[in-house]
Every structure is written in structure tokens, then in C-alpha cells.
């Protein structure tokens, strides 16, 4: 046997040569000196935790799980995964009610949509916001996204145009936001897909991707949802011979990478079939000759904000290329920076100030860009940017749907 041919360690933590580039790229460390930083919290801290779990530093909860450290690492150390695994393995404190509520987007969403008008009104009331701030620690600056009166799933089943007429099909992972808060994005996706001759179908069963549960240490629940989702995805891919696409970069990232890395859910047979909608659309245009035709009167000055998980996926190029292909678009590039919200992270009172400090530069760049709106593939980035800059934010799929000349597109793709 050959010894020491290579070093193998969980999440490659032994590969770290302490170059500290990750630390330089960490958005949290720049604003919060209590956070040890990715190198310290990750590979360095891991050595101490292996010695004795008592060395677990509770400050690891400040990690956004943005994975920008992993993108920066030249040695392929899974720094973000090391930190998240440490939180899941060593933080034994019970999960507080607030975190449970924020994490259970599915449960809360299905309750709230039933009484959407009341819930929306109540959640906007200053006294309610103040009360939530004081009692459970949801920062009063935050506004919960409004709940829709009808879920996207319900719209698909009862109101959507018949999707079975299309010869080609694609499965859509809508995610909680589209389902409970913003069915319009799902409808936009259906509009674009139908225009290029694809029918959209839902997964047999869909649960929250689990990112919020992972972030709030509800591992068992997250794993249960993950297994259900992967089984549904597997069925869609194997039986339907169609990929599963989504319009939320975080949902897609979670199902591709966090499932196997953090939850131990094997997705290796279907991982490459889980895609963000823009990447898939771009691929269809490159390889299948699919064409999009846009309205000549469409005019907009826009920029694209790269969500951290989109950065990690390396797929920003697809969204940006599609947006730039719209003739009426005046595209203003800005630097890729974390907006600071990181899902439920920014809703927590103790994180609010850090959250805003992290996004400060980005907000200024957006304001300076003087655009009509910002495009981004992540819903929580949307909330953060809209709240912090006043500039509206749309998903690239919605932008495409808005700019699309549906009839001309159908003709260009030989559907008429």
C-alpha cells in the first residue's frame, strides 16, 4: 500500500494552507469583530473541536453561509460546510420559537395564505412589529413579504392554461416564496416556458428546500424534507425525462450541494438535472436553437445583483447574458457583493445591524447606478435591496416575461 499519496479529510479541512484569502472575502468579518472569520471558524476551529467539542464557539452563528469563502479558497477547502456542520453537530442549545417559526416557511406559509388579507394587515401594523421585536426578536425594521390569497400550486391546478398540450415538459421547483407570497413569478415562468413550447409541471410532492431549517439547526426536519424533495425530483427526472428547474438560486443551491454535504442526502444521480431557470434557458438557446424574441418597445436601465449562492453555483453569467440579450436593456454592471440578509439571518434582531452594514456598499452601488430596477435570482436579496434602497427588484425570469413578445417567440420557435 502506498502511504500519504494524498491527504483526505472531511470537507478537505487539511488542505488549508492558511493563506487567509477566505478571511479577506468574508462579508461578516468586515463588520462584526465578534465573528472569528471563516478560516478561524472553519479549518482552524475544527482542529480544536476534534480535540474537544467544548471548543465550539457560539459566535459561529454569525456565519451567513454565503459560501464566498469557498469561492475564494484556492485549496478547495469546504470552509462554509465545515462551519455549518460544526453548528449542526456541536450547538446543543434548543432552537428558540422565533427561529422555529422563521424556519418553517412551509407550515407558516400554508397557514398564512388561508387568511392572507388579515395576516398581511396585521404583520404591517407598527404595534405588531414592535411586539414581535420585543418578545421574540424579529427586528421591527423588517417587513414580512405579503402572503398571496391563492398559492401558486392552487393556481397551477385550477387556473393555469392546460400544460399537457406541450410535447416537451419541464418540472418546476417553485419554492415557498413563489407558492405562498409571489405566485406571479411562477406565472411568469410558465409564460416564458409556454412561449418556447415547453409545458410546466409541478413535482409530485414539494416541500421547502430546507435552507431555513438548516440555518436554524432543525436538521431532522430539513433532512425529512430533503428526502421527500429528492425522491420527487428523481421521479420527475427518471420518469419525465425532464430537468427540474427553479427560480430561486438558494433553493437550487441547497438541493444540489447542501443536501449531500450537510444533510447526508445522496442526490448524485440527479444533481446535474437540478438547475436555475436562467441557466437552463440559456442552455436551450445554445444547444437546442431555442429563440427569444422581445418587444421592440421594451426599454429599461437595469443592473444584476449576484446572490451569494448564485456566485457559488457560478451561474451569474447565464442570468446576465439573458438580460443583456434583451435589445431594450441598458445594462449597468456592479460588483458582486453580499446584500447581508442571508434568508432568516437578517430578520433576527441581533443580526439586523450587521445585516445592513454588510449590504451598505452594495446599496450605495445600486443607488449610484441609477437604474429602473435591479434583477436578481434570490427572493431574500430582493427584500433586502428593496427595503434598503427603495429600488424595485425583479427575478430575471419576470424581466424576460415582461419584455417577451410571446407571439413572435412562438413563431420563431416554429410553434405556430
Amino acid at each position, binding site marked *: 500500500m502506498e*502511504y500519504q499519496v494524498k491527504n483526505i479529510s472531511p470537507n478537505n479541512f*487539511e488542505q488549508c*494552507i492558511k493563506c487567509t484569502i477566505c478571511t479577506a472575502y468574508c462579508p461578516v468579518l468586515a463588520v462584526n469583530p*465578534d465573528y*472569528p472569520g471563516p478560516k*478561524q471558524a472553519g479549518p*482552524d476551529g*475544527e482542529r480544536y473541536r476534534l480535540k474537544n467539542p467544548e471548543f465550539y464557539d457560539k459566535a459561529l452563528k454569525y456565519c451567513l453561509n454565503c459560501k464566498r469563502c469557498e469561492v475564494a479558497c484556492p485549496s478547495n477547502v469546504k470552509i462554509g460546510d465545515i462551519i455549518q456542520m460544526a453548528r449542526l453537530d456541536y450547538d446543543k442549545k434548543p432552537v428558540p420559537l422565533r427561529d422555529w417559526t422563521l424556519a418553517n416557511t412551509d407550515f407558516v406559509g400554508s397557514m398564512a395564505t388561508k387568511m392572507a388579507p388579515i395576516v398581511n394587515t396585521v404583520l404591517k401594523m407598527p404595534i405588531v412589529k414592535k411586539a414581535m421585536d420585543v418578545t421574540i426578536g424579529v427586528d421591527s425594521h423588517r417587513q414580512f413579504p405579503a402572503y398571496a390569497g391563492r398559492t401558486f400550486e392552487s393556481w397551477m391546478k385550477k387556473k393555469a392554461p392546460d400544460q399537457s398540450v406541450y410535447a416537451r415538459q419541464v418540472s418546476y421547483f417553485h419554492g415557498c416564496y413563489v407558492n405562498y407570497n409571489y405566485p406571479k413569478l411562477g406565472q411568469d415562468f410558465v409564460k416564458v416556458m409556454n412561449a418556447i413550447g415547453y409545458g410546466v409541471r409541478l413535482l409530485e410532492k414539494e416541500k421547502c428546500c430546507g435552507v431555513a431549517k438548516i440555518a436554524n439547526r432543525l436538521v431532522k426536519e430539513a433532512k425529512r424534507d430533503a428526502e421527500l424533495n429528492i425522491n420527487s425530483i428523481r421521479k420527475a427526472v427518471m420518469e419525465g425525462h425532464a430537468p427540474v428547474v427553479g427560480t430561486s438560486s438558494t433553493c437550487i443551491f441547497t438541493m444540489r450541494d447542501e443536501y449531500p454535504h450537510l444533510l447526508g442526502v445522496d442526490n448524485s444521480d440527479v444533481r446535474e438535472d437540478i438547475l436555475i431557470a436562467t441557466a437552463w434557458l440559456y442552455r436551450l438557446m445554445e444547444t437546442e436553437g431555442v429563440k427569444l424574441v422581445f418587444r421592440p418597445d421594451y426599454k429599461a436601465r437595469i443592473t444584476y445583483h449576484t446572490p451569494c449562492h448564485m456566485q457559488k453555483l457560478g451561474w451569474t453569467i447565464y442570468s446576465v447574458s439573458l438580460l443583456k440579450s434583451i435589445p431594450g436593456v441598458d445594462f449597468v454592471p456592479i460588483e458582486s457583493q453580499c446584500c447581508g440578509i442571508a434568508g432568516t439571518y437578517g430578520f433576527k434582531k441581533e443580526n439586523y445591524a450587521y445585516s445592513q452594514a454588510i449590504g451598505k456598499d452594495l446599496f450605495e452601488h445600486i443607488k449610484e447606478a441609477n437604474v429602473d430596477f435591479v434583477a436578481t435570482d434570490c427572493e431574500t436579496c430582493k427584500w433586502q435591496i428593496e427595503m434598503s434602497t427603495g429600488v424595485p427588484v425583479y427575478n430575471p425570469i419576470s424581466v424576460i416575461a415582461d419584455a417577451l413578445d410571446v407571439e413572435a417567440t412562438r413563431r420563431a420557435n416554429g410553434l405556430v
Partner: protein
Amino acid sequence: MDKKHCKKHYDVIVIGAGATGAGTARDCAMRGLSTLLVERFDFTAGATGRNHGLLHSGARYAVTDRESATECIKENMILRKIARHCVEETGGLFVTLPEDDLEYQKKFVESCRLSGIDAEVIDPAEALRLEPAVNPDIIGAVKVPDGAVDPFRLTTANAISARQHGADILTYHEVVDLPVSNGRVTGVELLDRHTGERLVVDASLVINAGGIWGHLIAKKVGVTINMFPAKGALLIFGHRVNNTVINRCRKPADADILVPGDTISLIGTTSSRVPFDQVDNMDVTQEEVDVLLREGVKIAPSLAYTRILRAYAGVRPLVASDDDPSGRTISRGIVCLDHATRDGLEGFITITGGKLMTYRLMAEWATDMACRKLGHTGVCRTAETPLPGSEENVGEDKPRKSHIIEMSTDQLAAQGRHGSLSSEIEYKSDTDDALVCECEEVSVGEIKYAIDKLHVNNLVNLRRRTRLGMGTCQGGLCACRAAAILGNELGKRDEALCDLASFVNERWKGMMPVAWGQTLVEAQFTSWMYEGVCGLEPCKDNIKETHQQ
């Protein structure tokens, strides 16, 4: 301490600040003797700082050397009490591999019983549950009360205790001569290795605790001690592979002990006779690395792919009994020689042989002899009195200025290193909170504490007191930071660059025998930073040699 404060005359001068010398100085001081401890380099610069750090249960010697085994288990139990902050109670396993004879286990357990060592045969499956790193193919396992002991902390704690009881300490002072008058050693002549100055200090008794170098000291007054230097090499792995000591249940041989020591794991040792002129030249050979790996992988398969930080070797001061000059009956037992009765030279005794585990007992024997010779009636209390850092409930750790979340990792790490003395570390400013050594979690505050209180002259001293530079990057990030603090605190900024270059080279020396994979990348990165970017040049000064020790 500065030699200006050195007294003209002491009851006892102890030569050598390894565990035995520091322990002897402590015992002497505690019994009320005025004591001076002298050391040519730093604490633990010899064999004390170059071993396994294994808190032997004695089981390893039970079959071959029952006397040593009995001493070990007694001292083991004592150290757990008096040196809590230096000891980690990991427990130990003696495992039988398919290629080993399971019959040996019976003999082993019986010998342990006769030596008073609690050895319990357990199911191999249970052993694997206790210690997942152990080879799953083992056919037998015995649980014993082994542990880990940090020799650097242990020696420093003994030195601090000696000082607290009034002893004086001079490091970097080499004994160049032992003045003799009327058949009696009257003291020592010292050379200050930093300044080149010489001074003579008188003593009623000189105790030679120089380890393998003790025979050179004795030679200065024409006394021969029949020593046999035995080199032992070890490998340090980058992180904890095991949390329980794993021994191989067979007649002691190469690479059959894997010890978890602080943040790392150690496999060792080899054993080879070396000529006397090689005792200062402890390079680890490729053959030794190969043996350590080949045998180590048998007890813990993950060693085959775990990053190795460095290799090092030490010299055991084995002594042949006086009636056997051929050296066939070499003992690992304690040898305490009164040169008055043995060689007709008064005022001089040698304490040698033994092992790290029995340092306290060696100190007790030497001090007993010293008291007898000096007509002093002190009683040994070192077996009951906790070492500084191991006392209970002494002061509280000072909260960090900036860290709002309970204790930070480096504070916990400092507590592990200094025990209750960590309460003396000051975090006066945000700068004190900052980390110097990131791999081993050493803060600026801890560095300043060590410089102020723990006899620190250079970066190597600082490493031994705090673990600075002992982690994954082997000083790559911390050495320059520490050099700056050290230069400022000691007011020796001119020497800082030279010290830095020596330190980085000393780290490389240990990495070289295992320089492949990420360890090689790390070393290249370090040299690229220091030499390429910062333009650091190798130290040409004659201080260099001193700095490396």
C-alpha cells in the same frame, strides 16, 4: 531573571532545566534550600521537549521492567492531581493485531496486575467504539489508565513553582566549568550565551540534571557516567486522529504508540543507538519516517492519509549500571549518584536515567540525597502540592473586552495551556484580544503574559510556552507577528529579524523529512511570503545557534 540579582552562594545549584532539573529545583526550594537553576539554552530544550508526551500507565514496561512500571503508575496518579493542567486523562488501549500473538495479552495483563496497573480486557468492538481511529481488524484490546502530558507546560510549571519558593533561574547560561577545591565541587562557572560574560556562583552542592549531556558535565571534573544515547524519532500529525492513547500489545518495538497531544497526534518511536558526537544532531532520516508510517498505519489506518506536520527526534539518557560497563543491562530506571561515595568527589551528585513520567520521583530522590548531604531536614511535599496552574479556584479569567459571546476559543485554549494561571492574562485593549498564532489560538494578551512571566527570550521559547507556531502553518502566519511583539516588549528590536529567520528555519527543519503534499505547499507558501515578498534573509549572526535551541 537577570544574573545581576544572582546570589553569591546557594545551598544547591541544579544544572539543566528539563523536567528533572526544574522538578529538582522545585523540590529543593520547597524544602527551604536556597536554589539556583541553570540551563544552557531554554527549559525543555533537550529530551524533555522531544518525546511522546505520554502519561504512561506503566503498562508498556509491565512485562519487561516491573520496577519502572510500578513507578510509572504511582507517578501517573500523582501527576493527575498535581499537574491537572498539563495532563489529559484520555485513557489508553493496548491492541493486538492479527499478526501479533494474542498469548502475549495474558502475560501483559498479569504483569500489569502485579505492577498495580488497572488493566481491563475489553471486546475489540468495544475498543473500536471507545476509539474509532483504531484498526478495525484488531483481535484483542486492553484498557489501561494511560493519558497525555504536556512536557513543556509541566516543566514550566515546575520552574514557576521553584521561583515562587524563592529559587533563582538563569536560562541561556552554560556551565563551562565546575570549580573544585579540596576534593569538593564549590559551585559552577557560567557562560552567558547572549553576552559572552562569565561568572562564578558558589554552592554547597551541585546537582547534575543534564540528561544525556550530564555525562559531559561530569567529565569536567573527571567523573565518568556510562551513558548510552538512544535516539527516538516521532511524527506529528496535523490534527487529532485519536482521542485515546493507542499502544500495540506486544514486546515494545518501533512505532507502536499513538498519542493524542493537545491539537495533534504523535506516532512513535524508533529506537537506535547513536554515537555521543551525534546527540546534538537530531535529524530524522527517511528510513525512520518510513518505519513510523508503515507501523503506525497498522494501529490507526487513517495515518495513511492524514497530513503530517513535522518529524523530530530526541535522545533517551539511558545509563548502564556501574557494575556493567559493557552496557548490556541498560535500565530505564532512575539513577541517582553521589559522587562522594562513588568517585570520592564531594559536593556533586547526578540524577539521570528515568523518564519524563518519573521526573518528580527523580527530583525527590535527588533532593533527599541533597538534604542528607547538607544536613537539612526538609520533607518532600511535591506529591501533594499542586503545581502553579493546577490549583483549584484561583482567580477568574478576565472577560474579553470585545468578545461578547462567553469565552472565545483562544481564551479556552489559553486556559488549557496555563490552567488557573490564565487568569493573569490581561486583555487590556482590542489589540490584546487579537490572535497572533491562529492555528493554535494564541492571543496577543497571552504572548505578553508569557514574555512577562515565563522566561521568554526568543520565538522558540515563546513556542514552548504557548504552542505558538506549532500548528498547521508551522509559524507561517504568526512568526512575524510574534517577533514584532517580542522585539517591542523586550526592547530588542534589532534582534527580531534574526530571531524570525532562525525560527522559520527551525520550523522548516522539522517539516523537511515529511515535505510532501500540503506540508510542502505550506512550506513553499511560507518561504514565498518571508523570502519572496518580505525579503527576509537567513540569519548570519552567531546568535543563530542559540536562537534555535
